[in-house]
């Protein structure tokens, strides 16, 4: 039996959070502004961009992982950065997977506002920055949904993080890759335990975000 004690499980869990949360924040900081920008402007080629976003939303994470690995290997274009099998690589892959999803859902949330709403805001002579604030207020539920969806995807992703992270003990092993490994070794009890931790994480995150959602409604 592998030497897996509580300390190891804690370490793997903290690392999982240390990969998933920064990935979510980075993806949100890229995806939400892009989604808002794309949703509030009309320009030539917009349709093409929206199609690209939709395609990206459907891109299989494992393919993203493969492409990332090909670039990050020493033999690849970005090899000299020595990022392969590091947490940074895992965060990068997760960001690539999550950004189209966040852009897409933000875009949908912005699109759900009807034209009259935006005209109304303009005719009240509200300055640009405050219009943005009001817009975000209106779509905040949609944004929350996109973040929850992205986080769920990131936490449960296994193909890409395995490929670019390598599941190295003490360095890049996270809950999903550890579960795969212990299952392949026949150590199902350990795998179940890690699985329970992972589900617990998902529930906590979902619960936190739902609580925020509820408090927002009552205000």
């Amino acid at each position, binding site marked *: 039996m592998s030497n897996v004690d509580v300390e190891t499980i804690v370490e793997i869990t903290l690392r999982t959070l240390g990969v998933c949360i920064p990935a979510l924040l980075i993806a949100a900081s890229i995806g939400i502004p892009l989604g808002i920008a794309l949703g509030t402007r009309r320009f030539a080629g917009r349709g093409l961009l929206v199609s690209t976003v939709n395609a990206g939303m459907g891109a299989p994470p494992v393919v993203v992982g493969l492409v990332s690995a090909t670039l990050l290997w020493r033999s690849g274009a970005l090899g000299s950065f020595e990022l392969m099998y590091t947490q940074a690589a895992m965060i990068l892959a997760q960001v690539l997977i999550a950004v189209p999803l966040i852009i897409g859902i933000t875009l949908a949330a912005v699109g759900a506002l*009807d034209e*009259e*709403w935006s*005209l*109304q*805001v*303009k*005719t*009240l*002579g*509200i*300055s640009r*920055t*405050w219009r943005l*604030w*009001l817009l975000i*207020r*209106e779509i905040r539920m949609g944004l929350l949904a996109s973040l929850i969806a992205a986080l769920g995807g990131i936490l449960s992703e296994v193909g890409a993080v395995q490929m670019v992270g390598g599941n190295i003990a003490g360095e890049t092993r996270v809950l999903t890759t550890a579960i795969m490994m212990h299952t392949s070794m026949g150590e199902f009890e350990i795998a179940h335990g890690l699985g329970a931790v992972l589900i617990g994480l998902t529930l906590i995150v979902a619960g936190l975000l739902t609580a925020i959602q509820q408090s927002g409604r009552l*205000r």
Partner: protein
Amino acid sequence: MIDDSDTPFVLEAKGLRCRLGEGSARFELRVDSLGLHAGTVLVILGPNGAGKSTLLRALAGLEKTAERSAIVGAGGPVTLVFQRPAAFSGSVAHNVGAALLGKGISAFDRRRRITAALARFDIERLADHDARTLSGGEMRRLALARAFVLEPQVLLLDEPFDDLDAEGQRQLSLDLQRAIAETGVAVAMVTHDLRRALLLADRIAVLSQGELVQHGTRDGVLMRPNSLAIARTVGMTNVATGQVLRREGDVAWIEIEDGFEIPTCAIVRPGDRVWVGIRPEHLKIDVGRGDGQPIGKAEVDHLVSDGLATVVSLRARDRLFTTHLLSGRGLARRLRTGDRVSLAVDPAHVHAVAIDDERATNAPA
């Protein structure tokens, strides 16, 4: 039309051209000159699709206009309240206060102005309610409060009384009038409710197929519409075509097709083919009190009362005339369908326009 008011415009459209849509849906707004004065209400009338809402939006600066169009303002805030006002998510107070965001107004002042605006339209008690839970009427009041909190110089209203019941309209109209009087704001309003319009209007502008076809003072437009189409739009329902028979001093007599002779003070020459118009409230049922000149007899076809006014339809040969009576007063209570009555009218209230050139020949309003 010559405008002889000497107060300056707070908003003026000059040579306004605005093109919308493509192909068969193309529409062009053409308004050469239209101005708004402080403290007055301009009501914009016209059939559906005439471009009334587009004109309001152009005045608000929301429509792309062609070159050489100018919308010149005095610099104060111009705000537009839409036909279907949109609520921001949040409380009513937040909605009203949204208009004041980022304008360097202290929190104390904000609160004061929000409360004042809510009080103007009697929705203070709703201040903390979620704006999404408001009824249609309450939403309209919110929209008006939101507009007034800005202390605008110009207020543009698109169908402000839509979807309200009679009492709601009456109450809102009163509150609005008070607010206009207290703040001196210039108002341009689009409404299809003619009666409400006539109660509130100081000036009237008529649009037809995108073109401004007439504008002037309330009475000027109501009494002296330039064409048959405008007459219908402003509620001059008794219209007919005829020929001028003779002139006797100030009064010309016009025979309309079926033998009625109608006197008018309008300047028309004997022999002219003209159309004649009489507002329903000016067509009198002759009870021997000398209410104008008798013009012929008619039979009561039917009566409709809304409690305030009774609309009487009178049939004379093939023609239907309309007149208004105060409900509950003598004549309205006594008349029955089938009664034969005499019609009379004061020649000063008879409008006539020669058909060759549809230009009013009356003295300016």
